[in-house]
């Protein structure tokens, strides 16, 4: 038999066999995750020597981004847990990374917490093992984004609102409303220089705007949108699209674009704002008098430290959750990032100014008042990120657009 004949005989069989084997492997990969509840940890033992966490930018500084801004190294020295930080730009990326099984915990916003709990990726948190939980602000405890079916799934970290930022040398007059980027007539003026967040959750920003400017739509919650409300928000963003210079999910890219003036006005986070300020770029945002929020209010976040269900270093994660919510550390993180702390004791003026000294910032004993840390009524104008679901949560029933619809619409908005 010639080699050629031999090959022709078994080649098709090999291909079919290979495909069949692949499909079997895929079928075998099913199941797992989802649904099943795990018990929260009962005790915290000795650290495992390592900790892998996913953080928002500015939450886990170890002195490498800015010299002297470092609360990770003291934690490593105290606990012997070597921290490995991954910084993500979107909640979807965080969920994806948590599902890789390589991480012990995450600073999750509300649009990630619900996903992680529903997917069975995170374990309940025993708050008794986190002594600093006692003095967390009461209005952050047992909230729908950190407590599910009465079970606590995380330790509150801090909260803030998405920021409207502009270049003072390019944008006149200083805007007080989101209309500068969402009203097509005003956005036109900055065509090609508007910066928008590249994530389906940005549709909620349009909904917040419409809630104030188009009462006939009857929007009550920017994440619970029925068809009519949803279409209006999507249309608004489609009208905005030609004027957008850049959709960002990489904060360093946004910092660069604002620095060189390609971006002149847009939505951002406090992290970018303060980095640009420190670099002497002429940027501004709504001042402390308005609570840093435009007239319509804003989307925002209330973040939660969660622990992976199958964390390889659970003791280090518990130690981290307690450390990161301690008053001195919270005073540092919150002032560095520019958000309201979850830890009430972090608002003590001496704690605040001590942290300022360590960070090299001017003393700001009024910090917590400016950020409304202890003012629950203020946060009614800030709509924390959450996962849109079909159940509107009110008398409308199951007619709201779910996250799959949001994600599909986002592709359409970007054209």
């Amino acid at each position, binding site marked *: 038999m010639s080699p050629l004949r031999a*090959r022709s005989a078994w080649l098709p069989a090999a291909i079919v066999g*290979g495909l069949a084997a692949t499909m079997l492997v895929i079928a075998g990969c*099913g199941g797992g995750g989802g649904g099943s509840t795990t018990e929260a940890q009962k005790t915290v033992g000795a650290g495992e020597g390592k900790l892998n966490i996913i953080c928002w930018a500015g939450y886990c500084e170890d002195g490498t981004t800015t010299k002297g801004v470092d609360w990770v190294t003291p934690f490593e020295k105290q606990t012997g847990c070597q921290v490995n930080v991954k910084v993500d730009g979107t909640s979807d990326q965080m969920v994806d990374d948590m599902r890789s099984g390589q991480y012990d915990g995450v600073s999750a916003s509300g649009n990630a917490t619900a996903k992680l709990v*529903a997917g069975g990726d995170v374990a309940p948190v025993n708050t008794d093992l986190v002594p600093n939980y006692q003095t967390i602000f009461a209005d952050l405890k047992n909230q729908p984004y950190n407590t599910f079916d009465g079970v606590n799934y995380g330790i509150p970290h801090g909260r803030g609102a998405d920021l409207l930022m502009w270049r003072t040398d390019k944008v006149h007059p200083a805007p007080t409303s989101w209309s500068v980027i969402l009203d097509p007539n005003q956005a036109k003026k900055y065509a090609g220089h508007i910066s928008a967040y590249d994530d389906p959750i940005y549709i909620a920003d349009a909904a917040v705007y419409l809630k104030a400017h188009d009462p006939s739509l009857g929007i009550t919650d920017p994440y619970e949108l029925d068809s009519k409300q949803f279409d209006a928000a999507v249309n608004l963003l489609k009208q905005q699209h030609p004027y957008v210079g850049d959709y960002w999910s990489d904060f360093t890219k946004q910092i660069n674009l604002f620095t060189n003036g390609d971006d002149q006005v847009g939505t951002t986070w406090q992290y970018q704002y303060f980095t640009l300020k420190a670099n002497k770029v002429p940027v501004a945002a709504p001042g402390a008098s308005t609570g840093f929020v435009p007239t319509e209010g804003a989307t925002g976040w209330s973040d939660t430290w969660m622990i992976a269900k199958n964390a390889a270093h659970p003791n280090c994660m518990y130690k981290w959750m307690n450390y990161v919510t301690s008053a001195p550390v919270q005073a540092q993180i919150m002032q560095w990032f520019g958000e309201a702390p979850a830890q009430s004791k972090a608002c003590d003026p001496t704690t605040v100014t001590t942290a300022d000294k360590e960070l090299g910032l001017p003393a700001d004993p009024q910090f917590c008042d400016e950020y409304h840390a202890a003012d629950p009524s203020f946060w009614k104008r800030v709509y924390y990120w959450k996962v849109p679901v079909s159940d509107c949560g009110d008398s409308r029933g199951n007619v709201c657009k779910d*996250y799959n619809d949001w994600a599909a619409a986002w592709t359409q908005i970007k054209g």
Partner: protein
Amino acid sequence: MEAAGVTAEPPKRSVGRRLADLFYGRRRLQVGTLLAGPMGWLVIGYLGSLAVLLISSFWSVNALSGELQKSFTGHNYDALINTSVYTDVAVRTVGIAAAATVTDVALALPIAFYMAKVAGPRARGILVVAILMPLWSFYLVKVYAWQAMLAPGGVIDWALNPLGLSGPGYGATAVWLVESYLWLPYMILPVYAGLERIPNSMISASEDLGANPWNTFRRVVLPLAFPAVVAGSIFTFSLTLGDYITPTLVSPDTQFIGNVIYANHTNNIPLAAAYAMVPILVMVLYLAIARRLGAFEHL
């Protein structure tokens, strides 16, 4: 006595020796073992991943948890067909891939012809090095360089402003320019190889028979080099079709197939998988046509 004891033991056979015996005279086993590695790689690595892609394109994701729901649904394909944005993006991407290919052909033909038929050995060597030189630098570096050049107020604007013009800025035009630049060497090299194979005597014969240079090029050189052009176009077309980094960097607000897939990979993998079928189908079609045109004899 001692000598007798040694000979009584059966001779020790090494592993290699036994393997050699096993393979001796068994053609099927020989060929099979030789090809098992590469074939396994091909079947599992290539066809297997395609199968996974195809299967997952019929799944969906849970709207709350974002987890995969592994039950069959045609919903993704339904959405792709009935939502204009996916068609628009696909048409735009194929259009840019075709435009970049045509541009590269137009640039490559004269350069390759000069190299193959006009230049002396020394000039030819220098040109080959010049064409290969861009491949020495990292892909990202080149795209970032274009990003800086195309920026408003960048080098291109600066050069065009005195003429009362301005650069194309970011967008589809920028993608076309950068893709044409990136993949040009992949077009020049096969075309050069194809032209070199054309005997000089044919060109002389054409001239002797009274054809002017244009006719010689159009009726002799081009038909003979055409399969090589098609071979080169496979590279320029497919590389442009699948690129998402260049569009991300020089076209932040205009999406291409790769960007849509990239944007969906975190929140809707099945939809991304279904959309990934589009470039695959386009390439299957393209390769089928290329095969008919004889491109594979020139690779």
